């Protein structure tokens, strides 16, 4: 596996004032963020917000018009090859060699990364594809291809993982499998940047989320902090009331809120209790003035 003699920097990724335009249109404008090792940063935004352009600059596909990108203490694009040797990338499009088997795809990329004595079996096992190792990728389902994409991104045991919509369009079971893989990579110490327009995924996976819209980062924080800052601290309790349903909202910051909740829970006919915290989508709308769809 690839190893590095460089000491681990405090920040795996450090992006400062990055800007990129397609012609006269700014796709990314003055974007700054950083990711320490072991953290998952979720880029949350609608289509066309600048998420994929940001990822392309991190992978070295695009060179920023302005600003600096440091990955693992090295400059991108100046030290592109050295950085790319330690990057794992999962693209939005399923860019696999369809006429080749899963094994052949992985072995080919292992050679490109210069990974010696590569054995695809453990990686395919982790991706849940061990029984399909020698099947051609053209015979894989969409979910299987996505899992193979993830396995490919892990060939070089990357220090930085860049994942562009890694669960887009997947069935729930496949999506759970992919999220589990991502979580384990972060636990191993990899810095992970993932883009998504799925607020549940961002909430579930990300240590921090960055809201991006029209090429600009609106805010970056942990999902909990965002929800606390923008949601209502209240509990909505629904109880059976004769033939109907009774409902009360108890603000948590009010005096006596604890007793009111206890009373409601102990009373007969309790049906449901829900916290009233805001979803990430609610907060995104608050920041961007638009939803995540489209």
């Amino acid at each position, binding site marked *: 596996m690839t190893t590095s003699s460089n000491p681990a920097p405090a920040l795996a990724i450090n992006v400062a004032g990055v800007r990129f335009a397609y012609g006269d249109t700014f796709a990314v404008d003055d974007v700054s963020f950083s990711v320490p090792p072991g953290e998952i940063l979720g880029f949350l935004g609608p289509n066309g917000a600048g998420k994929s352009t940001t990822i392309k600059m991190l*992978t*070295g*596909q695009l060179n920023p018009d302005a600003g600096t990108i440091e990955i693992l203490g090295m400059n991108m694009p100046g030290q592109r*090859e*050295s950085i*790319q*040797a330690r*990057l794992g*990338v999962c*693209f939005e*499009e399923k*860019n*696999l*060699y*369809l*006429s*080749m088997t899963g094994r*052949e795809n992985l072995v*080919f*990329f292992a*050679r*490109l*990364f*210069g990974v010696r004595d590569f054995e695809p079996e453990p990686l395919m096992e982790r991706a849940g594809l061990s029984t399909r190792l020698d099947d051609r990728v053209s015979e894989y389902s969409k979910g299987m291809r996505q899992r193979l994409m993830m396995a*490919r991104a892990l060939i070089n045991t990357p220090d930085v993982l860049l994942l562009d919509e890694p669960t887009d369009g997947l069935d729930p079971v496949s999506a759970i499998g992919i999220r589990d893989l991502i979580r384990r990579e972060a636990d191993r110490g990899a810095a992970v940047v993932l883009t998504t327009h799925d607020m549940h995924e961002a909430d579930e996976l990300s240590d921090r989320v960055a809201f991006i819209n029209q090429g600009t980062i609106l805010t970056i924080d942990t999902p909990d902090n965002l929800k606390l800052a923008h949601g209502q601290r209240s509990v909505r309790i629904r109880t059976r009331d004769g033939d109907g349903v009774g409902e009360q909202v108890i603000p948590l910051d009010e005096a006596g809120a604890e007793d009111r909740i206890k009373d409601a829970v102990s009373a007969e006919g309790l049906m449901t209790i829900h916290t009233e915290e805001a979803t990430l989508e609610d907060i995104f709308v608050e920041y961007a003035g638009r939803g995540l769809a489209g």
Partner: protein
Amino acid sequence: MTGSRIAAIIRKDFREFSRNQFFVFITLLVLVTYVAVFWFLPDSVDETVRIGVSNSVLSTDVGGVTESGTAGFALEIYASEEELQTAVEEGRDGIVAGIAFPPNFFESTAAGETPTVRLLVPAGLPPEIQLLLEGAVSEIAFGIAGVAPPVDPITEAVILGADRAGNQISLREQMLPMILIMVLMVETFALSSLVAIEVQQRTVVAVLATPVRIVDFLAAKGIFGVGLALSEVVLLGLLIGAFAVNAPAVFVILLLGAVLVTGFGMIAGSYGHDFVGTLLASMLFMIPLMIPAFGALFPGSSPTWVKVLPTYGLVQALIDVTADGKSWSQIAPSLLLLAAWCLAAFAAGAFILRRRVATL
């Protein structure tokens, strides 16, 4: 490290190529078909012009002009003008034209009269042959009348260049450059398809997200393309005996040809958005590139502008070596021209593919 990465991409390309049933089928089909066509073509040229004559009186040589088998002429005698006309129309007995002498030709001519002799010529007969026949009739008439032509200059033929009398280039030899170039063209399509698939499926993006540099990628495509085209054209060349004369020169010419078509393959592949698009883009290059090879089938027929086509040097060098047995120094101008086009095509192909990849 770079070498092993390039080698990995080449191995991968070969694997993809060998698994594409269409490419494999076309490659084998082209090989088998062209080899078969080549060996079925006549390997000699009948230099005798056969003329039909409708008056048996003239079957004996008159004035030496119509002596059978000399001066490239041979006579076929027909009993009547009608029979002669049918033979000319149907191209029977290999005759290219007929001379219908009137029954009283001998007597009329001897008496100093002016009989009418009808030339029966098919529509496609070159006018030069018709003039030749008219001259022959006059010679016969002078011979019969015992009168010398008014002016009878001594003519002396000076052959400029290789004297091919008795050693004409056969159709098989003429077809040789075209067959070799056709195979190179087919591999242009194969390479352009592989490049197009890599671009369309964006697998190149995944490759370039590894430590592979764009120059490594382009080098791999170039080596694979040249290797693919060269191996097939060399195999075909061996099967049709293209290496019989000056084999090293033929190999170098074919190598340059493979480089040339690889450059065009990369350009076509960069622009192909799907199978049909790639096919059309390939055809766009293949058709003009074939023109010099077609021109070789009809020597002297190619207009001057054909010389600016990239494959002109390739065809010319092939003809010079395989048909005329020319030496390295004699084919040097054609080789230099071809090498310049190779450089231009390959550089353009790499540049366009690089730009295409950058926009993905």
